[in-house]
């Protein structure tokens, strides 16, 4: 077992870090704000850690700077984009991400230009990473249940109804936007420590596609869905190639694509939804069994 853990340590760390990135997108999607600014904050968080590490600051300070800077930028962005809804908000945040990427390339020595920053000294242990993941998961769990859970459901599905119930949709969506940015910044900072490098392409469109895939395939209606989605999407490129099947190094991404397609079509509420339905099916069968 120990060998399994040590040889897959980076994979486990990657799953933890990308779960946080998936959380960042899930938080805003769940609140009905189709924002992908979390990916831009992922890059901002990463660079904040890298730059503060270069100035010999303690990693925790680097992470905190990453979170705070991302939160502030997300707050300003939320104010700027308040009138945008749905895919128009999505596109505006994708444009923001691209501009973050361009700014990072042209940041001169401060951001390391086209190459970015490498050789980041700060390190993080797998245990610490999963502790952070557990903490953020708990915070999102608390946000999804009880009163706030119900309120966010309505803010997402039916704004006029929310207003008629005294819910200030705008401020709740803004809170989700800022939280999404902060978690994105945290994820980026941890990713920088795990990989030891940051580069301008961290905010690029392929990262957005991966983040969206993780959340939709996992089940965007809950943090657990984002976690499951991240685990699967990050494991597949490694896992599919580790069964020693001939030619998998060339064709794994076809299997990957087909799997995403299958889950998207035949699991309406993602993997989490599928598991829940399976759970309730089994519970019912167990019940029938007991009654029979």
């Amino acid at each position, binding site marked *: 077992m120990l060998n399994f853990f040590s040889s897959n340590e980076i994979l486990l760390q990657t799953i933890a870090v990308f779960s946080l990135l998936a959380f960042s997108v899930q938080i805003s999607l769940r609140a009905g704000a189709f924002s992908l600014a979390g990916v831009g904050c992922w890059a901002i968080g990463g660079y904040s850690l890298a730059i503060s590490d270069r100035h010999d600051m303690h990693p925790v300070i680097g992470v905190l700077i990453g979170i705070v800077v991302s939160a502030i930028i997300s707050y300003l962005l939320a104010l700027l984009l308040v009138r945008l809804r749905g895919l128009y908000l999505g596109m505006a945040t994708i444009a923001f991400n691209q501009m973050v990427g361009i700014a990072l390339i042209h940041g001169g020595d401060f951001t390391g230009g086209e190459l970015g920053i490498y050789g980041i000294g700060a390190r993080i242990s797998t245990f610490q990473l999963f502790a952070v993941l557990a903490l953020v998961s708990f*915070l999102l769990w*608390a*946000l999804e249940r*009880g*009163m*706030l859970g*119900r*309120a966010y*459901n*309505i803010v997402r*599905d*039916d704004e*006029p*109804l*929310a*207003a*008629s*119930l*005294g*819910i*200030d*949709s705008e*401020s*709740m969506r803004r*809170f989700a936007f800022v939280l999404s940015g902060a978690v994105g910044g945290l994820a980026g900072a941890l990713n920088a420590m795990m990989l030891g490098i940051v580069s301008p392409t961290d905010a690029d469109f392929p990262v957005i596609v991966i983040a969206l895939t993780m959340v939709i395939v996992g089940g965007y209606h809950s943090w657990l869905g984002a976690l499951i989605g991240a685990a699967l999407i990050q494991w597949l490129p490694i896992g599919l190639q580790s069964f020693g099947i001939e030619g998998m190094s060339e064709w794994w991404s076809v299997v990957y694509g087909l799997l995403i397609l299958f889950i998207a079509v035949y699991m309406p509420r993602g993997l989490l939804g599928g598991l829940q339905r399976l759970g309730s099916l089994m519970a019912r069968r167990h019940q029938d069994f007991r009654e029979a």
Partner: protein
Amino acid sequence: MHQVIERDANREMIDMQSEPLLNVTDLTVNYDGVVALDHVSLTAPAGQLYGLIGPNGSGKSTFLAAISRHGKVTEGRLEFAGRDYTGEPAFVAARLGISRSFQTVRLQEDLSVLENAMVGADHHRITRPVIFNWLRLVRNRREEAECRETALSALERVGLVDYKDQFPSSLSYGMQRRVEIARCLASDPKLLLLDEPTAGMSPAETDDISELLMGLRDSGLTQILVAHDLSMIHAVTDHVFALNFGKLIAEGNSVDVANDPDVRKAYIGVADEE
């Protein structure tokens, strides 16, 4: 607690001087040229069940939208319990105590009947910023229990307690409306706005809803009911306002208003011979 007001011929004698719950002055709404409401002024003291009638396109829904602040107000003043809330957004109006239902049933499909009612009961806690509600776990657990109690009592008042664990999609149209009313009640409103709640209902269901609304009025809840069904208006309302082409053409008890020449003309389209 609430003075039970006998429902009889002399209801009109109620003292109108007490502070009106709702005071609307010169309310005008026009959508780039189209005048939907034209200087409507009216006052509605607390404790009564008001009817709002008028042919299609007379501005009933616009009026409801305006006083619940869901809709635009071009001119005029809106006061609720003495406070001017003309420029406020809809959620502030709701927080003042104005609760409303919509023409279409709006329930949360993935929440049970009880949870849908609990959303109303969240009313007073939702006013706190999100971050306060998020991190106070111990307090949340206690308040969640209170919220459940409030919701249960609201469901009791509408007679749906034993459906509390069902999902809205499995209920009849009439019952879904009752869940909506329970949700409104759970938020302990001062004024309840009902936008054609019985549209498309069977006579039996309409009578149930009528009974329910009268019961609520008797327990002191002020309501404004928008409806086409004049027989229901007669049965249920204490005071009626009639709109036509955005103007308030008559008000009074439902019988007088029904006989008012302008109202008959508005409905039938031709003035009957004198």
